[in-house]
């Protein structure tokens, strides 16, 4: 690779050819402010629209300033990031953005999490020299998952990059031109009428509150304060390795015990683990896979835990609805078991139980509202909170999360195995399924449960796992664009697999749209992944079918995996949907 000599603020340095001025500045410890720019290198996700003009710098010998995020260094380039001309250009850009932005920061859902607010602070903006017309658009509150408020949009196009390039859903586009431009779906449709999967990756990267989640905290507070209701909470695996970040703990800190204590402080009547639902999912899914393999059923079998993925294939591959597993997701299985098995045991009427889920995900909110999963009000999930919303509730309640002691989930639906913990990361669901399928197919006990070949952060991975005489061909994809590639290869007969795991979000649930904001720092996602595997290693039981409470559930209530009763409560069907 060719090296180039440049000078930044009188400092000489060498950079590789193809380096942007912004990257070069980082090498010498300079921070040039940015807003629209996003570079999630490890996932190959780049937004380089250079639309915000916040990162302008001076290049000697040129009449105009250059956007450092997209301008490449050239031999002999002399750059100034710190003179008055550059600083005032950047300040002007931010002032112009603010002149068309609501000043309701105190009431804004992104207060203290907003990149524009942080920028105004970093640049010392104390006055806005421009006054003019302001955008005035309707908020889109049509869905159960996300809220779109175009009045807070700064046209950075990050959401479009996620929606179009990374997830290939193609829902969001710039509409109109000039001052009238805004980001929205085709024909100004409501989000709920589009093929949006509600993966929430647009929310995860939005620098302002133009895209946020539907807030359910008030409804949960009301349920908790209703003496007639028995309020049960369940927590997804990826929440326990991320929520600490909201309380100034290091990324990747495992906070399972504190999380349980914090939920106890909020006075939930029972605190259960979605991991139990994940173990239950493996019982059903591994049985389904073995059944399909041994009886010439449709292969590959695709996992169905991720509701954004489910909605994606319903819209994009409506002719392939026979290949996903029919298993409900762990969250929905938990809802079903809580309102039947648990209700019976506790002598409670299902209608008196409120099931609250804490999820790293926005799509889980939409999933819980799907008609076929709510038709029976005594067999469902009532309210879904994101990791961030639970953080808000804990702050509101004045709970010192980081200082809490550890405690354990409640019995019956609170015990889980290492197999279920890894559901939180890409590769985890299929590894959990393999651990169980191995024992069941071979009749032996698998000693080495770590399948390194299934782990990692590559967008599309494949591996062959030897299970007795059988070579199990496994495919893994995370990010819906990668999932699309994998599916198209299967459709075209290029790839052949027995089982495929798909998660919609880059990294899996650890990178979900409901997690604490990563603000472009992918190290955070990696640390969460390492924490998930550490939690798995620390478990005595590492295989779902070894969970004694799962065994008890089948003995006392469900019979065997894939039994009639199990089908009735734990399985679902898919509905072909239009692509728009």
């Amino acid at each position, binding site marked *: 690779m060719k090296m180039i000599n440049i000078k930044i603020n009188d400092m000489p340095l060498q950079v590789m050819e193809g380096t942007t001025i912004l990257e070069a500045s980082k090498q010498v410890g300079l921070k040039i402010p940015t807003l629209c720019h996003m570079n999630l290198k490890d996932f190959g996700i780049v937004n380089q629209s250079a639309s915000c003009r916040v990162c302008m710098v001076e290049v000697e010998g040129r009449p105009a300033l250059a956007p450092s995020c997209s301008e490449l260094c050239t031999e002999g380039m002399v750059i100034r990031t710190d003179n008055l001309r550059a600083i005032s250009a950047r300040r002007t850009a931010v002032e112009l953005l603010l002149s068309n932005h609501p000043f309701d920061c105190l009431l804004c859902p992104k207060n203290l999490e907003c990149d524009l607010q942080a920028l105004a602070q970093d640049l010392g903006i104390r006055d806005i020299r421009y006054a003019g017309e302001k955008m005035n658009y309707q908020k889109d509150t049509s869905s159960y998952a996300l809220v779109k408020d175009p009045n807070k949009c700064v046209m950075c196009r990050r959401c479009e990059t996620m929606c179009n390039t990374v997830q290939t859903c*193609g829902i969001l*586009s*710039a509409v*109109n031109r000039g001052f009238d431009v805004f980001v929205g779906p*085709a*024909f100004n449709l409501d989000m709920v009428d589009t093929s949006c999967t509600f993966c929430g990756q647009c929310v995860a990267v939005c620098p302002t509150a133009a895209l946020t989640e539907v807030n359910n905290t008030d409804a949960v507070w009301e349920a908790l304060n209703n003496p007639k209701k028995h309020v049960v909470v369940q927590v997804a695996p990826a929440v326990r390795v991320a929520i600490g970040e909201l309380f100034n703990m290091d990324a990747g800190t495992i906070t399972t015990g504190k999380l349980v204590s914090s939920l106890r402080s909020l006075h939930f009547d029972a605190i259960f683990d979605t991991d139990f639902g994940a173990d239950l999912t493996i019982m059903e899914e591994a049985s389904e896979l073995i059944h399909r393999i041994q009886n010439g059923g449709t292969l590959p079998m695709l996992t169905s835990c991720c509701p954004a993925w489910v909605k994606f294939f319903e819209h994009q591959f409506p002719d392939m609805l026979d290949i996903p597993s029919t298993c409900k997701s762990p969250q929905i299985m938990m809802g079903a078991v809580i309102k039947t098995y648990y209700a019976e045991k506790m002598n409670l009427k299902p209608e008196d139980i409120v099931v609250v889920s804490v999820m790293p995900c926005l799509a889980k909110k939409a999933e819980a509202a799907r008609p076929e999963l709510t038709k029976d009000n005594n067999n469902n999930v009532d309210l879904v909170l994101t990791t961030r919303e639970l953080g808000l509730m804990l702050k509101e309640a004045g709970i010192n999360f980081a200082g809490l002691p550890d405690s354990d989930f409640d019995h019956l639906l609170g015990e889980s195995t290492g197999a279920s913990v890894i559901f939180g990361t890409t590769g985890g669901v299929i590894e959990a399924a393999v651990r169980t399928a191995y024992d069941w197919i071979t009749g032996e006990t698998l000693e080495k449960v770590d399948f390194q070949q299934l782990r990692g952060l590559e967008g599309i991975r494949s591996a062959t796992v030897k299970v007795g005489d059988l070579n199990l061909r496994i495919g893994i994809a995370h990010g819906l664009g990668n999932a699309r590639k994998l599916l198209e290869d299967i459709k075209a007969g290029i790839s052949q697999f027995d089982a495929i795991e798909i998660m919609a979000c880059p990294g899996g649930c650890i990178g979900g749209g409901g997690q604490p904001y990563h603000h472009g720092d992918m190290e955070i996602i990696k640390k969460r992944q390492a924490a998930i595997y550490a939690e798995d290693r620390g478990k005595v039981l590492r295989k779902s079918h070894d969970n004694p409470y799962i065994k008890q559930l089948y003995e006392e209530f469900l019979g065997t995996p894939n039994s009639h009763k199990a089908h009735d409560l734990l399985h679902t069907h898919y509905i072909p949907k239009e692509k*728009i």
Partner: protein
Amino acid sequence: MANIFSLENADQKLKALDAFILEQDAKEDALISILHKAQELFGYLPSELQLYVARKLNIPASKVYGVVSFYSYFSQEKRGKYTVNICMGTACFVKGVEKVMHAFSEQLDIKSGNTTPDGLFTLKDVRCIGACGLAPVVMINDKVFGHVTENDVSRIIDDYKNMEGSEG
């Protein structure tokens, strides 16, 4: 969204559109010419037609809508028989096209973007049409009128009305 076949002579027009799309080499790059063709055939680009094009080219409908809403040449509303495009580009603006716009608006009794009740005229302001030497420029369907002043407006409108009368 209405069914595309509820549009007038949709069957025949879609056949012509399909044939045009087939002729294009790089389909996605040809989006703008395909939209031009669609508008030429149907007179405007209702959402069901945009969706048809999107599915035909296998691109997101939001992308097609983004392009259609960006260019003022494309119309999403049914237009009159004659579209009066008033160029609001810099050169025409400097040469006083605002007065011409005002005269058309007053004499047709409609605002820019609207269509006269008899379905004859649609008035539109457009961005530079690239005939700056003739500024101020008005384009009625494919016919270009150069150096237009507000005094020419009533004559132009009458010519079209008369043409209509003699045809009828």
